[in-house]
């Protein structure tokens, strides 16, 4: 069977109609990361899966964005295949329409077309036809999707599927079951006959009871052995994972440390940036930034009122010939309020005979000294006024609100807000925050890069981060489990062997006893039935072993071809009841539990090639193999060896890879002409996204497909 053509229409990044025409040998689909290689592989997966139906998630986002009201378009994956000289078209498709602003999905079809002799084509059920042309059991071993799905036997039914598909062993189980039943029926019949002789019957019953007891014991050890084998396998796999992930784990630890530090820095920076500007208007009194003119206006008003009040008061006092001392200032200037300076200050000035306001001497008897004496007297009189009765004299201004205004003015000028500085304070804070935000943006960009790097590393890992980081702490534990499990398995194996020998002996004793009472033909029939049962069971076991040996041999031929001049070990397929596992062993037969990445990939691919050979031998037909990024962990020389090996196989292989591609000027992806020329190939396609595109908008992505000659 050969794949002749793949046709994609509005499938994921393949906007519009795209076509790949394949040759019989090696077909390369070259593209950098993210350009559409995996989507190409997923097109095969979608077509081959009988459960996958119409799904809006596989529709080209760009096409979906372009859709107009009442418009309909098709999403299609179609394959043209050739089988025994006849061409078939298999296609899966559905329609997407926009009606009343609502996206609808309809008309899903999975059909194949069969060519009739008269040239007409008849549509038939696609799933059924696909199963005939390219059976699912073969497909399972024909498609390889990167490192993440390496272990092709990681499936409970893997061994059974392999046998059902490729081996004659599948015919034996019904015969074994039948002979088992015949043998046990005959045993029961013999037991009934033996019961007629009481003595022998008693002895046989005792032996039978012992056989059953020992059989139960055997069953127990068998179960314990299986548990120990499972433990061993689990521990071996875990150790293998640890080794494979060791470097990755170290890198993640370093990156986590850097991410934590960056996050701490970002958090500290965020704390520094306080943009509660609305709150600052009140709490930091920024709202007064333009208040100066109003304050000055207030001061002037108070001064004017005080002047007027003083003038009227003097006039009034003269009129009523008030006895109190009133001070006259030069040029009839408005005196300071009576409470400035206060009593203690005035007394100090008088004592020191010095005016400490103008720093001039004021000796006793001088005009200045007399002025200060009068000012002190006025202060004392004013304070004493409160004790006088209102009837002592009539006041022009019984209220004194102005005095409190003046106190308020003094308080604000001495302990108030520095209004002139507020504008600078606001500007400084805004500038500070602007600089910190720039720092924050830079830190966040750096953090994004670290996270991107971490995601890139984790994307290549098959285990979750927590598991990855905790792996190393468990090395000792796993090593201990491996050692203990191996010891236990050996112990149980010896016990089971010993019980088996004992059971054989008991059975023989029982049969000898029965022979004393049973006719000779019955004993002979019993022996024949037992032999028939053994023949079926042993033949099945032998065929199974031969089949596995054959697959192992073929796999080993391939691994040495994939890893020319390199260490490979040998592939060992280990069967444990109904499961099969693949591992590498050293020349001394010890398992290599920690094969490095490329060796492990080589191992699984060698098995796949081995299965492909088996498929050819058993079905007399070659099937294509489809790979997605098979060589991502190979180094340069091995990459070329790998492709040349596939070329030499003369099998149809379709391989999506980023090998032989480079980034020109760090921006433009292109084919590396120097390396691609050294590789033997039959057909090459180049895929890449149309540029420019918006990296945050999927609907700007379209992959173009070009044959590379």
């Amino acid at each position, binding site marked *: 069977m050969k794949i002749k053509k793949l046709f994609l229409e509005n499938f994921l990044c393949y906007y519009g109609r795209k076509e790949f025409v394949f040759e019989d040998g090696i077909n390369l689909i070259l593209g950098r990361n993210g350009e559409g290689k995996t989507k190409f592989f997923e097109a095969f997966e979608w077509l081959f899966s009988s459960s996958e139906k119409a799904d809006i998630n596989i529709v080209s986002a760009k096409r979906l964005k372009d859709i107009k009201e009442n418009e309909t378009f098709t999403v299609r994956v179609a394959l043209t295949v050739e089988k025994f000289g006849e061409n078939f078209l298999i296609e899966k498709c559905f329609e997407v329409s926009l009606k009343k602003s609502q996206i609808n999905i309809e008309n899903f079809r999975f059909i194949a077309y069969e060519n009739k002799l008269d040239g007409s084509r008849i549509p038939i059920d696609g799933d059924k036809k696909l199963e005939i042309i390219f059976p699912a059991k073969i497909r399972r071993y024909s498609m390889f999707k990167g490192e993440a799905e390496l272990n092709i036997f990681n499936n409970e039914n893997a061994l059974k599927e392999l046998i059902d598909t490729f081996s004659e062993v599948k015919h034996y189980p019904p015969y074994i079951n039948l002979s088992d039943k015949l043998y046990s029926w005959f045993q029961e019949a013999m037991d009934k006959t033996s019961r007629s002789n009481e003595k022998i019957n008693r002895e046989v019953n005792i032996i039978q009871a012992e056989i059953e007891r020992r059989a139960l014991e055997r069953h127990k050890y068998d179960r314990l052995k299986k548990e120990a084998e499972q433990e061993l396998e689990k521990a071996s796999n875990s150790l293998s994972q640890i080794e494979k992930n060791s470097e990755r784990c170290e890198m993640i630890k370093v990156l986590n440390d850097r991410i934590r530090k960056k996050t701490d820095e970002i958090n500290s920076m965020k704390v520094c940036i306080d943009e509660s500007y609305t709150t600052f208007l009140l709490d930091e009194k920024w709202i007064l*930034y333009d208040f100066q003119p109003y304050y000055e206006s207030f001061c002037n008003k108070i001064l004017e009122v005080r002047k007027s009040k003083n003038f009227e008061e003097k006039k009034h006092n003269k009129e009523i010939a008030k006895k109190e001392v009133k001070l006259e200032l030069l040029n009839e200037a408005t005196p300071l309020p009576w409470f400035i300076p206060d009593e203690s200050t005035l007394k100090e000035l008088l004592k020191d005979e010095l005016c400490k306001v103008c720093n001039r001497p004021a000796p006793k008897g001088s005009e200045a000294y007399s002025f200060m004496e009068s000012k002190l007297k006025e202060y004392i009189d004013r304070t004493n006024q409160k004790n006088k009765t209102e009837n002592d004299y009539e006041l022009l201004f019984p209220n004194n609100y102005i005095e409190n205004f003046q106190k*308020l003015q003094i308080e604000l000028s001495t302990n108030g807000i520095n209004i002139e500085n507020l504008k600078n304070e606001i500007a400084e804070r805004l500038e500070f925050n602007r600089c910190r935000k720039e720092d924050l943006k830079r830190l966040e960009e750096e953090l994004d890069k670290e996270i991107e790097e971490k995601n890139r590393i984790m994307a290549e890992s098959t285990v979750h981060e927590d598991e990855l980081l905790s792996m190393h702490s468990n090395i000792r534990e796993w090593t201990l489990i491996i050692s203990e499990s191996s010891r236990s398995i050996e112990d149980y194996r010896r016990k089971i062997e010993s019980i088996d020998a004992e059971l054989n002996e008991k059975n023989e004793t029982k049969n000898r006893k029965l022979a004393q009472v049973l006719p000779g033909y019955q004993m002979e029939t019993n022996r024949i039935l037992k032999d028939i049962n053994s023949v079926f069971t042993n033949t099945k076991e032998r065929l199974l072993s031969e089949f596995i040996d054959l697959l192992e041999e073929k796999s080993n031929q391939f691994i040495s071809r994939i890893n020319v001049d390199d260490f490979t070990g040998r592939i060992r397929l280990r069967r444990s009841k109904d499961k099969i596992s693949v591992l590498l062993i050293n020349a001394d037969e010890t398992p290599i539990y920690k094969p490095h990445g490329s060796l492990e990939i080589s191992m699984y691919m060698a098995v796949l090639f081995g299965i492909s050979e088996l498929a050819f031998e058993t079905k007399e037909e070659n099937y294509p193999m489809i790979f997605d990024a098979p060589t991502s962990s190979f180094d340069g020389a091995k990459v070329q060896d790998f492709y040349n090996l596939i070329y030499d196989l003369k099998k149809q292989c379709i391989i999506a890879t980023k090998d032989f591609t480079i980034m020109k000027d760090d921006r433009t992806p292109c084919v590396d002409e120097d390396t691609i020329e050294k590789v033997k190939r039959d057909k090459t396609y180049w895929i890449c996204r149309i540029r420019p595109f918006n990296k945050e908008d999927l609907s700007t992505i379209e992959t173009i497909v070009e044959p590379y000659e």
Partner: protein
Amino acid sequence: MNDLFEAWRSARPPYYDLKYKEILMKEFADYGARSKDIKAFETAYELYIYAFFVGLYNNEKKPISKKENSYGHKIEFWGNKAGKKFRKDFSILQKYIFVALVSKTDVDFLALEKGDISIDSVVSSLMETMEQYANGGMNLIREKFEDNESFFFTPTGFLNFILKSE
């Protein structure tokens, strides 16, 4: 008492126009401290002070058409943030508002000193000046909000608005 400042700040809470209750007070202030959202102003009176200064700096006085005072904080409690986390006391702003009102209100202080006019009438005049400036300020905020709905929902919105209103 002879202290006009005390008389003014311990009088009733000032009125504001009812029409601003929904469109400004509840939009930008945690009106009645019931909102689940974080508002630009923690209390309604904070927005009132802001509006007063906007009106003052723009010389925008507008009489109130329909009075509302349901937010209820007397002026003497404005800015008392003692015990409040992440806030600072700004009760000193009471004094600056008073200074502005004395400066901008036409009152015969000599008559007050003589006892010819009552302190209550002076307090009433100061209060009216305050209400008119705050009302004028609210009107300017409303106009800006109608012009650009997102303007005040940025950290710098209210700051920029008052800085540009010089």
